């Protein structure tokens, strides 16, 4: 078992009333799964993903990740946990504009305090695997959207995570670029990486082995 959510609630106070963003979410994710989360705008997809990624807190319920009770961990331990096991891919890529492709890939390793030679080897490996060696000295703004997302995925993978969380990874891409990224995800999943993606598109959702539908913060 990779992670388990039990009775997760998350709300905000609005005009004295609780508005639920997540309501009684129960979810078990095994290693090697490929899950697509679907639902209309505002149904809580991204919030769920952020909670799973430990970027966001929840108000009630239990969350264990690799048998560690996340809700009881301190901020620092939580950071260590997701730094080690989780990779993120965003709709807007979120590459750092001031860094080259090479440096963007290197960054997560810096925060893991790896030695220089190790970093070099791992980045070179990644560049090779995604066939972007020729682009390593370019800045993100010099790349097309598809290429940027490719770098984004590479960056998510470089720390060898167990879980990839992707928030509408193809949202800013055209269909051809989107298909390429989805194929890549499928291939990664076949290699054993667990993937949870949020998507609007039925076609992309079908890449997943399991589909979760959300409506107003509930699983339906």
């Amino acid at each position, binding site marked *: 078992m990779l992670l388990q959510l039990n009775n997760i609630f998350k709300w905000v106070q609005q005009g004295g009333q609780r508005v639920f963003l997540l309501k009684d979410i129960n979810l078990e994710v095994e290693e090697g799964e490929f899950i697509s989360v679907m639902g209309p705008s505002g149904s809580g997809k991204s919030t769920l993903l952020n909670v799973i990624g430990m*970027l*966001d807190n929840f108000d009630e319920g239990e969350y264990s990740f690799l048998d560690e009770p996340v809700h009881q961990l301190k901020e620092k331990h939580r950071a260590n946990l*997701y730094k080690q096991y989780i990779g993120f891919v965003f709709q807007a890529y979120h590459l*750092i504009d*001031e*860094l080259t492709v090479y*440096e963007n890939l*290197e*960054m997560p390793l810096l925060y893991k305090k790896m030695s220089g030679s190790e970093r070099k080897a791992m980045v070179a490996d990644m560049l090779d695997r995604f066939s972007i060696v020729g682009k390593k000295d370019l800045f993100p703004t010099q790349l097309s959207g598809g290429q940027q997302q490719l770098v984004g995925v590479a960056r998510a993978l470089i720390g060898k995570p167990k879980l990839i969380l992707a928030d509408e990874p193809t949202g800013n891409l055209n269909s051809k670029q989107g298909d390429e990224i989805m194929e890549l995800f499928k291939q990664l999943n076949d290699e054993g990486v667990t993937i949870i993606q949020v998507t609007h598109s039925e076609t992309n959702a079908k890449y997943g082995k399991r589909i979760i539908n959300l409506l107003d913060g509930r699983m339906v």
Partner: protein
Amino acid sequence: MLKNYLKIGWRNLMKDKTFTLLNVIGLSVAFGVAILLSMSAFFEMSYDNFHENGDRIYQVYSTQQTAKGPEAGTTKPAPFAAALQTEVPGVEKITRFLEQEALTTYGEKEINLDAVWVDSDFFDMFSFPVLKGNKNNPLEEKLSVVVTEETANKLFGSAEAVGQTVNILIDGKEEPLTVAAVVGNHDTQNSLDFEMAIRFENHAGYAENIEAWNSSYLQVFAQLQIGVSVQQFEQNTRSFVDLHYKEGIEDLKRDGARADADGRYLQIKLLPIKDVHFASFRNGYAEVIRIVPYLILGVAFLILFIACVNFINMSIAKSAQRLREIGMRKTLGAQKKHLFFQFWSESLFVFLASVGIGILLSSLLIDNFKTMFRTNISLDMLTSPTAVIVFLIAAFLITLVVGGYPALLLSRLGTIQSLKGKLESSGSNRVRNVLMVFQFGIAILLISGTLVLWGQVDYMRNKDLGFDKEQVISFPIDGKKNPYQAVQLLREELTGNPDILGVTASDNNLGRGKDGSQSTSIWGFDYKGRGVRTHGLVVDYDYLETLGLELVQGRSFNKNYAGDTESIIINESMAKELGESDPLTAFLPMNDSLHYPVIGVVKDYNFQDISKAIEPLTFFLDRDMGLSYAFVKVAPVNMARSFDAVENAWKKIEPNAEFLGSFLDENIDNTFRKEKTMATMITSGSIIAIALSCIGLFAMSLLIVAQRTKEIGVRKVLGASVSSITVLLTKDFLKLVLISFLIATPIAWYFLRQFLDIYAYRIDLGPWFFAAAGLLAMTIAILTVGSRTVKAAMQNPVKSLRTE
């Protein structure tokens, strides 16, 4: 890791060159100016701190309670020093100290030297290291003198100075004295400045004054034994006072003086040598005010503060553009400390560059600075180990706080929030606003200070002092001739020159002439059972006429009346002090048998520094007392030629003496040189402060306009006019200026009130000074912000909307 930070820091700086440039320029200027200012402040504060035993050396002064309140005096009679040392325990060394020029001749040379007349302990107490000659006690012999290296060169050239005999004019006779030692030239920060030191026993009139307790004319410095406390010593002097000042205390009691808190009428007090330069005796006690150096330091601090505020504000405002980076770094595992160090190291870049450029700037500007502010700093001050350490610590602390604050703020942001690119709250805006209020408050403070200072200087320069200062030349009468004879010769020499309107002389100058000396002589006597004190001035004929003094009653001294040498003229304040209904009926006692009649009353005029109120003054025509300064009135045309004529005439009379003539208005200007320097300094400070505030304001307006581009676009689409948008964008800034005006004005008012209180004659601290300062700040703010906002408001809305 560090490499990565530096790299991204560098790229970020280069990406927005305008901001980097504004920041670096602002900080460099601030650092450069702050370095120069604090150097001159510390230099100013270093007065008299080179004496090895300085902690134990004090100037002796006394405070006496008079009917008018406590009065302090530093002058002491000749027997005072020796008596104090023998009668009061705790004095290790003591010296009398009198500054008086000594006409020194050596061969053909005849030079008026600034001499100090001191006791043999002088060189043991004070650290003026002996270069050549008797090192242990150079003034051991009564007929020895000590000269400085510069004086030795002046007198003897390259010849060996020690052992030479020079003739010094004492009491009209030339006395041969021997040079026993040469001391090094002085530190410039020395209030015991001299060219030659002579044993006090040689001083003119010493024989008559040796036991005279009622004639105070010299200063006394004492070095206490180790472990003797000042307070204890001051208490121990009480019986000494009772013994030697019995009569004086009786007189004080008779005139209605009230005892002080200790029940005493006269107390002896000690003032540390390091405080002497900064002491003023305004209310009867030594008040040590290091106002100038602290003011300078304050200005330096304020300028630095403004530049730092700019930096903080710009960093925080700019960080809005980097929120996504922060969020991304957090999702990739960056902890707070990582982010803090990253942003801080970026600030370090800017600061290192600015400090470097600042040092460079200060070394480039140091010469201009020195002439402008009449200070004698050098860059060597920066290389002393303490200076280096203090400087490094200061720079490090500034970097830590100023660079660290925005870094801390950024590292604390929530992950999701920053990924969405939104700042959580308006908290940082509040900080920004507070800082900008501070910044403008400082600018307004400095502007109003500048206005008031210049107002006061201008007032002092243009005030009618009661005498003619534009057309009168004064110069010291140096030389071996009898001064009366010399002045008479000058008269004869200048008769026939139609541009010379009058020649006279007196024993005191007006203002501060080129010889740089000012003196006071006070005469006290009993008049109808009451103590009266007055300034005394010995004058030659035509004094009133030459200086254009106005007679209120009676007549001036006249050559045709032989009795006038035993008559006196007084000023209005003196007339009031005497309390006679007709002052012309008064006779003042010169001694027990001799009484001088008052023959005239002169309208009050400012014979002392303009900061002082007009005090009683008495004119004597006593031919037995010396004259020290000649005054020549010239016609308002051809003044330069007349000046030359006077100089040439004097050269004929005293060919060996240096002519140190100057017009009285220059002399008066010299008396408020300190104020002028201060005014220049504050003016430059406020100009820099305003310029820096403008840089900050400009940067903020750039950022705010950038952040509100979309809003501006939407408003324009909905029909807003250019002017309404400009007003909308400028309004917020003006609100801040207004708040700072409200805060700064009372503070400025308080300090300026205190400052002006020093002056007996001063400008009114009217509200328009502050109104002008506020208006100026407002105008500058509108111009700075307006240029950006108008431009933004005029843009095509389609363009501004497209940026989203």
